[in-house]
């Protein structure tokens, strides 16, 4: 019987070895695939056993996201707390059990949970695991300025709109405000509180990050891009002269100026920008054609989502939209170039994109990658990564940028944007008012940078449902936010 017993024994051991193989499969090869699955309840809970990294504002002191420790049945969980509440809600986002993560909490999750592949982090995490102590994530220091952000949110209070400000020479984001804002602390348990938020627009959409994900008609602020194309292509110069009749003829129909009753007559390019004369830009647009204009928008970053660190579904590309989708004219007849030239014609932009336009002019034509993250620190303070300024491309020649600066400075010193003047500081800017035909439903905007001789701030302000012009509504807000940023003498 012994030979049979040996065979049965082999069969029994083979069964048990199959178990070893199967266990190995599930605990090594299959792990990565299983961890990412939406229905993985264990992962959903386990993430709260990790002490997520703290998120700081640019001053390195203001805490935007931290943890609150709570013990449940002998286990320690770390739940997220946002001490500065609505201040940076749209940028930082939230990490909760009930809802999927949003904002930097989502896009920086690997860093915040110590799961990234940085050697230092891997070492720390592995040591923590072996020692059985809580795994700690990397801390993140942002570039944003909490004081200026507070000023920006206060200026937006009661209105719908957004403010976005960057340092033109580095791309460091200083302000990213979206109104109405919400308290991310309510996301876990009191989500109804967020849903009940109302504003000067309907729907109020408090969760929408208008600064990076809101699409607006730019109106006359887009004239900066048109002028960039006109001058950079060598077809026009500051000295070019035009005859304003108060309207321009497109396809045999009149396209009126903002105020068509008093035409300016003969003007040069600077004056046309200074007083935002639609008919002039309409003619320029017709001469340049829509394809060249679109080409120049792309140089500033249109047609691709803003390259910032927030999740890709929280930012949207600027450009021409048709039926809710981005579209590019394949021939000159698909788009009305005259209206495009002064920022109408289904053109939709984000505040971040318009700030990038202002920043490019300020930086001599260079488009720098805007970034929220200044540095990421391992436990113990060692730097995991530090963001270096990255030039995406040279959008326009430095001489073009200088010409545009002259035009934009004239706008603030004696044109439509005088409300943005700051005593003792040279400011360059451009107003925008996109009319809807209904009073109180205009989208107004203002883009600017300062100081002109050594720009430190570039800003875009966009407001919904306004009855005034961009110069009256958006320009004063841009002024006080720039003042708040410049007072600290940032570089």
């Amino acid at each position, binding site marked *: 019987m012994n030979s049979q*017993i040996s065979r049965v024994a082999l069969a029994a051991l083979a069964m048990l070895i199959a178990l070893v193989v199967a266990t190995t499969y599930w605990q090594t090869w299959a792990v990565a695939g299983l961890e990412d699955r939406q229905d993985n309840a264990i992962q959903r809970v386990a993430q709260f056993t990790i002490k997520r990294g703290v998120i700081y504002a640019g001053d390195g002191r203001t805490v935007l996201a931290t943890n609150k420790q709570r013990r449940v049945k002998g286990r320690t969980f770390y739940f997220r707390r946002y001490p500065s509440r609505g201040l940076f809600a749209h940028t930082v986002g939230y990490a909760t059990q009930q809802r999927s993560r949003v904002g930097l909490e989502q896009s920086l999750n690997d860093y915040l949970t110590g799961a990234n592949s940085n050697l230092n982090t891997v070492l720390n995490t592995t040591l923590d695991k072996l020692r059985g102590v809580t795994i700690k994530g990397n801390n993140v220091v942002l570039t944003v300025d909490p004081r200026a952000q507070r000023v920006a949110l206060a200026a937006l209070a009661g209105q719908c709109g957004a403010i976005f400000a960057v340092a033109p020479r580095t791309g460091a984001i200083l302000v990213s405000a979206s109104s109405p804002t919400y308290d991310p602390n309510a996301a876990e348990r009191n989500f109804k509180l967020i849903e009940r938020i109302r504003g000067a627009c309907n729907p109020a959409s408090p969760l929408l990050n208008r600064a990076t994900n809101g699409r607006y008609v730019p109106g006359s602020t887009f004239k900066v891009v048109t002028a960039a194309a006109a001058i950079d292509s060598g077809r026009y110069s500051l000295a070019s002269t035009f005859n304003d009749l108060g309207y321009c003829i497109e396809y045999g129909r009149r396209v009126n100026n903002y105020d068509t009753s008093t035409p300016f007559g003969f003007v040069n390019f600077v004056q046309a920008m200074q007083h935002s004369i639609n008919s002039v830009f309409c003619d320029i647009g017709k001469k340049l054609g829509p394809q060249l204009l679109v080409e120049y928008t792309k140089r500033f970053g249109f047609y691709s989502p803003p390259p910032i660190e927030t999740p890709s579904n929280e930012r949207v590309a600027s450009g021409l939209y048709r039926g809710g989708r981005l579209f590019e004219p394949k021939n000159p007849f698909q788009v009305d170039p005259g209206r495009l030239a002064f920022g109408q014609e289904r053109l939709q932009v984000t505040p971040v994109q318009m700030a990038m336009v202002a920043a490019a002019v300020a930086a001599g034509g260079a488009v720098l990658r805007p970034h929220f993250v200044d540095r990421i620190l391992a436990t113990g303070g060692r730097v995991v990564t530090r963001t270096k300024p990255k030039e995406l491309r040279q959008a326009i020649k430095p001489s073009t940028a200088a010409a545009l600066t002259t035009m934009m400075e004239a706008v603030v010193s004696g044109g439509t944007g005088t409300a943005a003047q700051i005593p003792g500081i040279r400011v360059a800017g451009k107003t925008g008012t996109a009319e809807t035909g209904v009073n109180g439903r205009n989208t107004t905007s203002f883009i600017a940078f300062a100081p002109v001789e050594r720009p430190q701030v570039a800003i875009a302000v966009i407001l919904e449902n306004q009855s005034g012009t961009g110069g009256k509504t958006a320009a004063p807000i841009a002024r006080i936010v720039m003042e708040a940023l410049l007072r600290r003498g940032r570089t």
Partner: protein
Amino acid sequence: MSARNRELLNLIVVGMITVAGFASVYIARQAEVSSASLSYAGIFLGLYLVAHIVTRICVPNADPYLLPMAGLLTAIGVTEIYRLNPDDAFRQGMWIVVGVALFSFVLFVLRRDYRRLESYKYLFGLTALVLLLLPALPKIGTTVNGARLWVDLGPLQFQPGEFAKIMLIVFLAGYLREKREVLAQGRPKDLGPLLVIWGGAMLVLFQTNDLGSGLLYFGVFLAMLYVATARLTYVAIGGVLFVAGAVGVYQVVGRVQERVSIWLDPWSDPHRDGYQIIQSLYSIANGGYPGTGLGQGTFSTTGGDPLIPYLNTDFIYSALAQELGLIGACALLLVYMLFVARGFRIALLTEDGFSKLAAVGLTFTFALQTFIIVGGILRLIPLTGITLPFVSYGGSSVVANFVLLAGLLLISHRANSLSPQTERGS
């Protein structure tokens, strides 16, 4: 070193592992080592010292590794159960006491010659049959988690199938030893008993709604039949019959259908039918290579509600795999392998047919049961609700496995006492 001293030494090592296990669960729970954790381990060690003294008296020449391995498995089980639910761990501890008591009783009663059981083989067979049919009776039969395996006698709930299993092995060992020459001729008319047992297994399958138990009984029967007759054709015919029967049952019994479809694609319904197996796989995957550490795994929501039902019993392997990781899970499986290897070694060493068949039956049922439950969790086969020997929470299972252990030690003692290799003893 004598066999029993070796056993004692092994038990002390097991005791130290138990202390370490309880201490780490305690640290994870309370962030301190309390004397309670040590006293748990102390009581545990004391219990096994009693068992050790009984083996010293009753079966001095028995295999010295089986008792420590059983001790280790129960210790791992109680530690994990304690980590999941301290109250259950206390009850499990009580059942281990009962198990050790019955273990001692069996060793003491049968210490001179267990082979007299052979003459009562039909009584054992009949009792096994009655026990298997008990859950089918109205009033006392109870359905738990869809399987009708339980008997409820007011204060006492138990799974008679666990004991029927051992009695069936005793019966088969006696019966096959007597008939093996006849059966080995392989005449068609000798297939009768095969068909009877097959019918029985199918009946069990049908009546309990549980594929696992049917597979277990029939698998053990086929293994013993093969050892007795050396005819692989029996195994082949039996295998075909079982598969055919299982397919038949699959057509009729909804629960078996459900189990099979979950096995084939658990993600088709991840929140209801597939939930348990899917979350169990997530639990295993979460352990990864090193595991989360004892007491540090994730088994409940942040509110403290359990994530996986039946974690204590059917799914204890996925809890262990998460907390001990691949290293720990493989170590656990290695203990099962060693236990099985020692069991077959006893079957090889012992002289008479009854002992050989009994040892093969007891060892193979141990291995097959481990394979069925762990294989079910790992999606090698459809999942069925049976226990992981010595580790899962469950009184009947623990007590029955102690009887199984006593049986192997009795056979081993006799083999080593008779054979000239006694002094090697290992």
